[in-house]
């Protein structure tokens, strides 16, 4: 176990329904994985299997029923709130719905400046930082005055990435980052993600149901089915596992 990594340790999640007669729906059971810097972990599974729930648990947006999330050694669900906040700052998430992940009532400029304000820099540094990162994700300041619905899906995803770069995380969860984009744009975004990883030493958790994408991007692959891990290993092993499973009519 490394101290510099995000460790998901035996995480389970169940939802209870009903006030008096409790009924539990188990979404995730005993999930363990590890995100290390400069590496990409691919998380794959059919839709509705709990991939996004797991991402939310890692992000601290939902609490696990049991198990631990360790970010660089800090157990985020049992640490004092200050420590928890500093740990959670290291991990950020890119959402599936790129347009929906920006406030529809704010211009791109407002969204970016709100984010950079979180860092508490002085005005001139802020401006140069925003412009620099906008340029880095391949956008120009022409889009500043537009609203999220006035720019394309690919541009929205680039803005979302720029927002994440502004807060300087160490680990990034990518929840279906390209599923809403057409093939040509998908390739551009993937290339951008790869370059950003090299430059910033990001540790990625890539969530998708697209096998070729996961195959192409990941160093390690985790397969989820019905809430539990049915495969965890390197990409090469996954290819074998997949062809074997295909014979037994396993469909991801």
């Amino acid at each position, binding site marked *: 176990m490394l101290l510099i990594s995000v460790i998901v340790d035996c995480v389970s999640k169940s939802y209870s329904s009903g006030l008096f007669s409790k009924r539990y729906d188990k979404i995730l059971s005993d999930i363990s994985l590890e995100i290390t810097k400069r590496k990409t972990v691919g998380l794959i599974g059919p839709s509705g299997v709990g991939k996004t729930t797991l991402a*939310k648990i890692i*992000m601290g*947006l939902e609490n696990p029923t049991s198990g631990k999330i360790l970010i660089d050694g800090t157990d985020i669900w049992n640490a004092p709130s200050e420590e928890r*906040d500093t740990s*959670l*700052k290291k991990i*950020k*998430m890119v*959402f*599936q*719905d790129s347009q*929906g*992940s*920006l*406030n*529809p*009532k*704010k211009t791109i400029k407002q969204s970016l400046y*709100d*984010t950079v304000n*979180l860092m508490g820099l002085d005005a001139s540094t802020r401006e140069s930082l925003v412009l620099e990162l906008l340029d880095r994700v391949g956008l120009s300041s022409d889009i500043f005055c537009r609203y999220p619905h006035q720019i394309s899906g690919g541009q929205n995803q680039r803005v*979302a990435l720029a*927002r*994440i770069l502004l*807060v300087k995380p160490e680990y990034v969860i990518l929840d279906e980052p390209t599923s809403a984009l057409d093939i040509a744009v998908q390739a551009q975004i993937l290339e951008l993600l790869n370059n950003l990883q090299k430059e910033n030493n990001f540790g990625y958790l890539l969530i998708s149901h697209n096998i070729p994408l996961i195959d192409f991007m990941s160093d390690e692959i985790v397969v989820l089915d019905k809430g539990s891990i049915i495969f965890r290993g390197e990409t090469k092993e996954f290819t074998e596992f997949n062809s074997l499973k295909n014979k037994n009519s396993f469909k991801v």
Partner: protein
Amino acid sequence: MTHHIEELKKLAISKLNLNSIGIIIFLLFLLIAIAAGIISPYNPWQRFEPYTRPNSSHFLGTNDMGNDILSELLFGARVSLIVGFGASIIATILGVTVGIVSGYYRGMMDEILMAITDIYLMIPRIPLIIILAALMRPNFWLIMLLIGFLWWPTTARVVRSSTMQIRDTSFILSAKSLGFSDKHIILSEILPNINHVIIPKFMLTIASAMFSEASISFLGLGDPTMKSWGMMLNFAFMKGGLINEMWWWYLPPGLCIVAVVFSLMLIGFSLEEKENIMLGLE
């Protein structure tokens, strides 16, 4: 499908026209209220010969005290609108706060706040105000506060459900995950996105508050030192205006109340409708 959309657009246009009619009527009354001091022919407390019919010097005649009814009517717009606006501002601030807090935080806070809201919703509001106004000295500000503090629950309910709708959208989640404070998320991410629910509700609350003030004043529990339209109606009934068929006394304040409430309803409903049509077209 295109036919369907055309129909919807037509509907939207006709609703927008209703909206502009509402706005024109409302602005007219707002102007009257603001400029009452300039446009009214006399001071509403000035006394002339009582019970005169409409004539060239008093367009709407005079009442039992000899006050000019037209001047009373113009100054009454001020009182009625201030009560309506004041009460609605209080109700909206309370309702939006309760609604956003319970919709955003959910859990125990939500349960408690919604239980309180339900209790408030069950209170028969007009009878309660009547009792309170009868117990305390009827006062203009007191009535405004009472209406404000009793009219928030429906706003809270509507705001809560809209907040719940957007609290799980990606942009709120991404704001949370970027590390924005709850205060920033509520004020800068949620509030601008539920404006379209709050504004029509605010308009409708003004109408409802004005109507309630008129009802209370009509029952004789209003502030006797303030000449609101409801108070004018009350005096017209009490001092024999109705029995003697002095329509110029009891009709104008009633029509003014109806016109303002109607204009606010038009604005409120067409804003709601416009939002629904926009959602339908998307």
